[in-house]
């Protein structure tokens, strides 16, 4: 099995790129990045592996931190419980894992397998199950492929561990694990249903770690050369600039466990005189230009600071910010009829037929 050791600089780029792929949600990767910087100073390294090199019967741990981003501002993420969630699963299964991978490449969860890999030496699979960030368990490529959702281990800092051995549906898995998560303080490290190498290769969204690193490097290179980082991202990833403007109003509310809301933008420069409305449910979901829906999930909707190119989260959107709204292409599996059932506009309650920004280009 061949692996590539990631440099400290690549970890920095990964954090930057993962925050952009978070499409407004997923939580800031800042604390995970700090943990990795510390581990790197101590000599640890993250080894990235090509999923094609996974044996069909290899055991892959699929990991994420469950909880509220606000709690993570105080209860700072810690590699200890992350590693323990994987060990607890190994004990339950009675076998060791061969590799670890992220459920979600968007936001803070992108760095979870890296932190586990840096501590344990397990290689990190170059891939995930979303290709971006989504709020719920059934919004993964594994769920779209109807793979089993159990078992799951959930671990907190006090050495509490919960194993959800079976669940009647993805929905039940979400309910049971959410209850346990809230009880331990609304932050817990989880190891999701283990995957075989074959399942990862057939049902995972592949090469998203290297994609996030590339995205981060693109922004860093543009900043260093004093070029427009947003245009650089668009050029490098085949994206589309949807709107440029400043935020006039933000309306947030919580319903059914989502942070929902809308932001209204007034156009600047080329978009002067036009108005843009952006709806979000943890992540950005749909955008309307002068009342007409022009961009929607699962296409990636990224809101970036107009000058620095830094991604802006739905929780940090604020009145007066000058931003660019950019669309990036979604992984093809999410665009299939089954994929759209899980993550299309109707899955978020918008009565819209999915229309990709990139449709005419394809």
């Amino acid at each position: 099995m061949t692996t590539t050791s990631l440099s400290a600089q690549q970890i920095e780029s990964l954090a930057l790129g993962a925050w952009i792929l978070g499409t407004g949600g997923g939580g800031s990767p800042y604390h995970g990045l700090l943990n990795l910087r510390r581990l790197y100073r101590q000599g640890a390294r993250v080894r990235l592996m090509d999923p094609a090199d996974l044996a069909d019967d290899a055991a892959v741990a699929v990991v994420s931190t469950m909880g509220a981003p606000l709690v993570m501002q105080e209860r700072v993420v810690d590699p200890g419980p992350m590693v323990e969630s994987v060990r607890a699963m190994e004990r339950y299964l009675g076998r060791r894992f061969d590799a670890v991978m992220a459920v979600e490449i968007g936001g803070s969860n992108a760095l979870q397998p890296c932190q586990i890999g840096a501590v344990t030496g397990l290689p990190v699979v170059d891939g995930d199950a979303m290709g971006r960030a989504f709020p719920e368990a059934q919004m993964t490529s594994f769920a779209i492929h109807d793979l089993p959702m159990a078992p799951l281990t959930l671990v907190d800092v006090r050495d509490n561990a919960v194993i959800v051995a079976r669940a009647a549906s993805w929905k039940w898995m979400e309910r049971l694990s959410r209850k346990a998560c809230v009880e331990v303080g609304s932050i817990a490290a989880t190891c999701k249903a283990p995957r075989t190498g074959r399942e990862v290769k057939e049902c995972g969204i592949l090469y998203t770690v290297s994609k996030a690193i590339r995205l981060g490097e693109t922004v860093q290179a543009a900043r260093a050369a004093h070029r427009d980082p947003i245009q650089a991202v668009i050029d490098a990833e085949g994206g589309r600039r949807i709107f440029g403007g400043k935020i006039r109003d933000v309306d947030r509310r919580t319903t059914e466990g989502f942070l929902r809301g809308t932001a209204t933008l007034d156009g600047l420069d080329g978009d002067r005189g036009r108005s843009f409305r952006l709806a979000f449910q943890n992540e950005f979901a749909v955008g309307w230009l002068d009342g007409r829906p022009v961009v929607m999930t699962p296409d990636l909707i990224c809101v970036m600071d107009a000058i620095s190119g830094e991604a802006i989260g739905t929780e940090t959107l604020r009145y007066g910010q000058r931003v660019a709204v950019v669309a990036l292409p979604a992984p093809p599996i999410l665009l299939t009829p089954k994929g759209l059932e899980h993550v299309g506009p109707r899955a978020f309650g918008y009565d819209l037929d999915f229309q990709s920004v990139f449709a005419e280009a394809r």
Partner: protein
Amino acid sequence: MNRIGIDVGGTNTDAVLLEDDRVRHAVKTPTTPDVMSGIRTALARLLEQAGGTPEVDAVMIGTTHFTNAVVQRRQLSRVAAIRIGLPASASLPPFTDWPEDLADLVRGQVHMLAGGHEYDGRPIVPFDAAGMREVARRIRDSGIRSVGVASVFSPLNGSCETEAEAILQEVCPDVAVTLSHRLGRLGLLERENVTLLNACLRDLARSTTRAFGDALATSGIRAPLYLTQNDGTVMLASEAEAYPVYSFASGPTNSMRGAAFLSKREDAIVVDVGGTTSDIGSLRNGFPRDANGVAEVGGVRTLFRMPDLLSLGLGGGSLVVEEPLAVGPRSVGYLLTEQGRVFGGEQLTATDVAVAANLVELGDRRRVAALSPALVRACVARMHAMIEEGVDRMKADASPVPLIVVGGGSFLVPDRVPGISEVVHVPHQAVANAVGAAIAQVSGEVDQVFQGLSRERALAEAQRLAEAKAVRAGADPSALAVVEVEDLPIAYLPGNSLRVRLRVVGDIARAGAPRS
């Protein structure tokens, strides 16, 4: 009511005397390296103008002294950091992500103890009081004189921090203690950073505020002394001594608040045209709009509100290049009155062009009489376009608002600006900072998660807590106003969890008035 406002800037120390809402006297003197003698000079000249020592109700000083100490890494004390929250948040100890040179100067000891709270107020684990006692003994034996304590979720429940303080006071009573929940908001690492910055400034803050007091006393002024904070409000010097970090970035805030006061407008765009830059900000309800994102001080991430400012490289001293035409960002700065052409120098500056265009009368007009009218027109058009674009960028909505102009280079601002209802020039615009200091009010803020309450009751409870804080800081309880409310429902948390950030402000209580 008579108030004196003093702004200690990098170049000038300005002082004003306000009688009720009128600027009675204003002076500008050079800032001195020791700061104090500059303040004494400014006060002496102010009292000379006033023809004696009037009854003064309050003196407010705005200073960059503490920010500069952090930025320049000087006069900082070594501190002990105590984090309470184990087994949570263990992997990123205090001083994580500090610039190494600053951490090396400030980091005396680092201790991490079991304790802290959950988002809903339950303890994570019981507080390790025995461990705290051992830590206090080690601090006492080390000779460290200042300690910063941060506990997980202390803005919701500060009991672990206050217990730690009680133990420290018992074991090593001479040590200065900074508790993170007194400094504010959620965000453990950033709040802890601010706590440690505050701790390392305690010695300097004590000597500086006392020197301010001495300067006042030698001037014969008997009035309570306040220091201005970054949110446009003040606190008593005796409190500022314990919370020097609150003065960070108060300069631009004072300038914008002064502009609001002098123009009698609460919602406006403000442009402060200096020698090298023009700073454009946005006023809402008489206070500057905050910048997005994380504010860093000396390379350390903090939770501070900083005014959202757009800085353009255009000021009175900006150099004009003819081919291809450019104005700024290079500038002769404070040397304008030596190097500018109308002042006898050789450099062509924005001020020279303005004199040639009859926008202002300064120096010797004849020295720019030979400039080609086409060049002058093109230059003026360029400068106006820069300001117009900057103003448009800072406007938060489409409706027209006034533009208030302050600063020495205010003549560079055009009389008409698209999207601006009127361009307002004000008297005393050159000392707007000191005016902003003089009029500062007292504030109280809460940032907390409320659970199980309706939105209305959560907001009311937040207001009650904020008002109590403001009154403790010296506000007149009879006239407090809410200036900022932000409520954020928290995804994933059960039971109507609502994070409320609410700020009230009020005038300072008159001297001698009872403080309830």
